[in-house]
């Protein structure tokens, strides 16, 4: 079954920032980590990957009136060069393997924004007898930011991206310390 072999990859956020082998070995240096996060934050490159109605609002956010380029956000077309995966739309069962491959193809420190009710919880299509969609992106991806709305306004998406920026710069340091402690305790 298409869905069976894709085991859930839901990794708690704290542990994931350890998993990013890409970031330099001098992880312990808080100042340098802060500096790198500041750089990562100001040039978040999302992947052009719209599924349904929310993709139109994502495009609208990139256009002249709301202009994501102000925040240094350019839409890259390959997963290899993107940091953020904005899941904009409903995830159907047929699409789950593709999303997982795209997620694994993305390098280094990467984040997920679940944009729209469909990506958060299945939205208007989640009901008792639903056979076609996965109820929410967090069932198959470690989601960082949830942007509610059906579709959320471009301002909503921009606020989501800014929230992600806050989360990256503030969250990492103590998350790393807690994660290292947890990892050490888990090993004992």
């Amino acid at each position, binding site marked *: 079954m*298409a*869905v069976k072999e894709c085991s859930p990859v839901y990794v708690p956020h704290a542990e994931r920032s350890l998993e990013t082998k890409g970031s330099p070995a001098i992880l312990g240096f808080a100042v340098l980590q802060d500096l790198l996060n500041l750089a990562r934050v100001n040039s978040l490159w999302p992947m052009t990957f719209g599924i349904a109605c929310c993709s139109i609002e994502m495009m609208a956010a990139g256009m002249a009136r709301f202009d994501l380029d102000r925040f240094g956000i350019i839409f890259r077309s390959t997963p290899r060069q993107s940091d953020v995966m904005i899941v904009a739309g409903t995830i159907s*069962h047929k699409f789950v393997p593709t999303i997982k491959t795209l997620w694994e193809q993305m390098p280094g420190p990467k984040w997920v924004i679940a944009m729209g009710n469909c990506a958060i919880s299945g939205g208007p299509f989640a009901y008792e*007898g639903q*056979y*076609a969609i996965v109820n929410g992106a967090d*069932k198959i991806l470690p989601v960082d930011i949830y942007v509610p709305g059906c579709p959320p306004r471009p301002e909503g998406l921009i606020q989501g991206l800014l929230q992600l920026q806050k989360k990256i710069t503030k969250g990492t340091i103590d998350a790393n310390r807690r994660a290292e402690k947890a990892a050490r305790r888990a090993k004992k």
Partner: protein
Amino acid sequence: MPTEGQKKLLEELKNSFTRALPEGRITSGDYARTGCHLEVRMSDAGMRRIAREMKERRFHLETITAVDFPDSFELVYLYSTYYQDFCRVIARILISKEASPVSVSSIYPGACWLEREIYDFFGIRFTEHPDLRRILNPDNADYFPLLKTFGKTKLTEEIDDILC
């Protein structure tokens, strides 16, 4: 309300159908309520003859759909014209639940995907179809969603307990 061009075309259609489909019941539908000018009601065959008839008069196949009645399926073929005096013909063909109707994709190539969708949703296998496989659901899905007997699927139960 129908123009005289439409009336002439309808008359022509009616007697050509009565000649071609002796066992079919041909009635002229009231356009205001059902949206179709001519209704042809058949049982378990004849969709190819209707299609050939329509192709000569340059009708285009608007859509094929199926309706799951308790005892049988009903295949609904809708034809309409592109040209001046507009007219729509609906052909309803009652088939039993296990029947496998003949595909019309040899006459209307556009029907290939429509029939694949019907197979995908209802499980009706069309014979002589170029490549009958699922179109919208995942290829290895083992359910036919639009059947009335189709409730909560094994798949969704699987999903919920694996992933939640």
